[in-house]
């Protein structure tokens, strides 16, 4: 099993990189979205899964990246790859600004602060109308870059997953986990929990920032409601929870399963969408709080690198 996994992974990655060669435009669009969700769920996992600090406003970083990249592309003529990276950087800046005051406190207070973040950003967008186009949104010059964005999204998803692996197998990751296990004891044992939480938070913002920019470029148009919707945060959370928060492959598994389900089943019941997500969250919290992989990990004593 141990030797089989890297081989299977390599094969999967190989197949995925060859996919655009014979896929339809629609197919590429769908896969590209899947990569986006993997990157988002995985990033949420970095802060909420590892440290236990639930981020209810993570879509803020997605939106921040989307707007940064769009403004740079539309108003300053930047090339989209660079603009998206800038989106990631700005998302990190936002994380610093929010995290600095809010991470000093215990989990529940942090969650409260994150709940309100969306509102503020939506307000900021309309306030700086000149720059952001306000409620009318922002249009990007047309560009058919679906295939390139497919690879870009895939790359980000892979990198965030790799980052998670590196973190979980390092002492840095162990320290993050102690915050989740027992923050008081962690502090007493010399761990500057504030600093570690902040690092995790910053790292968890980059992925959504870049991916937000990519999504904006792909859509060609953004408006406040499309980049700051609560449902994006909800989806991230459900995916990571379902697959197994705090694990490496959990968010990937959750993203793949729920996204597939969404495309095939729930798309027909569009009105029940959030209700079903809500039900999944409640079910997961009550029945398998550690998610699929978490449960398997416990049952079969699997290593932490799952």
């Amino acid at each position, binding site marked *: 099993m141990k030797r089989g996994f890297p081989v299977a992974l390599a094969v999967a990655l190989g197949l995925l990189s060859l996919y655009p060669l014979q896929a339809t435009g629609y197919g590429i669009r769908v896969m590209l979205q899947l990569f986006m969700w993997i990157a988002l769920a995985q990033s949420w996992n970095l802060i909420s899964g590892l440290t236990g600090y639930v981020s209810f406003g993570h879509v803020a970083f997605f939106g921040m990246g989307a707007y940064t990249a769009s403004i740079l592309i539309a108003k300053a003529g930047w090339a989209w790859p660079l603009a998206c990276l800038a989106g990631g950087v700005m998302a990190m800046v936002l994380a610093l600004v929010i995290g600095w005051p809010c991470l000093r406190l215990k989990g529940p207070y942090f969650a409260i602060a994150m*709940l309100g973040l969306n509102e503020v950003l939506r307000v900021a967008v309309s306030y700086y109308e000149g720059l952001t186009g306000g409620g009318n949104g922002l249009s990007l010059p047309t560009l058919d870059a679906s295939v390139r964005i497919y690879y870009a999204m895939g790359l980000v998803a892979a990198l965030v997953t790799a980052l998670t692996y590196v973190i979980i197998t390092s002492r840095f990751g162990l320290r993050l986990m102690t915050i989740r296990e027992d923050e008081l004891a962690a502090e007493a044992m010399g761990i500057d929990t504030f600093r570690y939480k902040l690092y995790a938070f910053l790292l968890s913002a980059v992925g959504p920032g870049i991916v937000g920019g990519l999504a904006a470029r792909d859509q060609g148009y953004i408006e406040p409601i499309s980049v700051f919707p609560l449902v994006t945060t909800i989806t991230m959370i459900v995916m990571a*929870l379902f697959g197994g928060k705090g694990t490496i492959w959990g968010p990937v598994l959750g993203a793949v399963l729920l996204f597939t389900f969404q495309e095939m089943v729930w798309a027909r019941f569009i009105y029940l969408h959030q209700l079903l997500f809500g039900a999944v969250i409640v079910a997961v919290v009550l029945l398998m709080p550690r998610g699929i992989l978490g449960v398997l990990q416990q049952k079969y004593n699997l290593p932490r690198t799952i």
Partner: protein
Amino acid sequence: MLITPAMIGQVVISGLLAGSLYAMVALGLGLIFGVMRVLNVAHGPLLMLGAYTTFGLFHWLGLNPYLSLAASMPLLFVVGAVLQWGLVRRVVDAPELSSLLLTFGLAIGIVNLAQLAFSSDLRSVEYLTGSFVLGPFAFSKSRLIACGFAVVITAGAFLFLKMTRLGKAIRAVSQSREVAQVCGINVQRIHMIAFGFASALAAGGGSLVAVMVAIQPEMGGVYTFKSFLVIVLGGAGNYPGALLGGLLLGLVEQLSSLFLTTQVNEAVAYILLVLVLLVRPTGLLKGRAA
């Protein structure tokens, strides 16, 4: 812009009017947190259900919205108690993450159900319009009456907590669950009642607000956040603190609308939260750290 004392007076009183409503709703949230250590992210949606109850009764039965309080509050009391018994109870002792996520899931579900039942169209209860003028001050009638009810209900809640056996039991459990158990208090029953009571308070807020704002399924979110803010201001687990916090929030909001544009006004609550969290996270009155 010249600011006259009359304007200040108007703003202060408006702030207190709005604040009394915030206090009432936040008291509910504070109760849930104080008694069960659960942060009820679904508090706003419960308020929303109260608003829809009032709307429904007004629309189909022509019932006076203020009378519908007698319907929305008991109804949501039951709903809240059932939710607690069925779901919330199971995460009361789990890590905080679990209760946050659970109530979050509940919140999403409730909002979606409302969307299915009532659609996302904006509704309103056109009942009371116009202002009541007293000297240099003018107050919207619905705000005045809402404040009146809020004051009465909140006062009633405090009397209940202070004087009745049940109220004292609730306060006992808030202070120490173990000790309360040892004193023969059925803690699970208290949890249920507290959650129901809190839901009723939220629903009451919803009914009062129904006359003043547009009703739609997602209206609750902002009240969840503001209730949390009030709890932070007043100190978690500090019930009189919720009162102070609510009034303070009302005041700050009205004052800021005087000096800042209305758009930034919406962000004021958030900035206030961040400031308070930075400066005095345990609340303005002594509260328990989470």
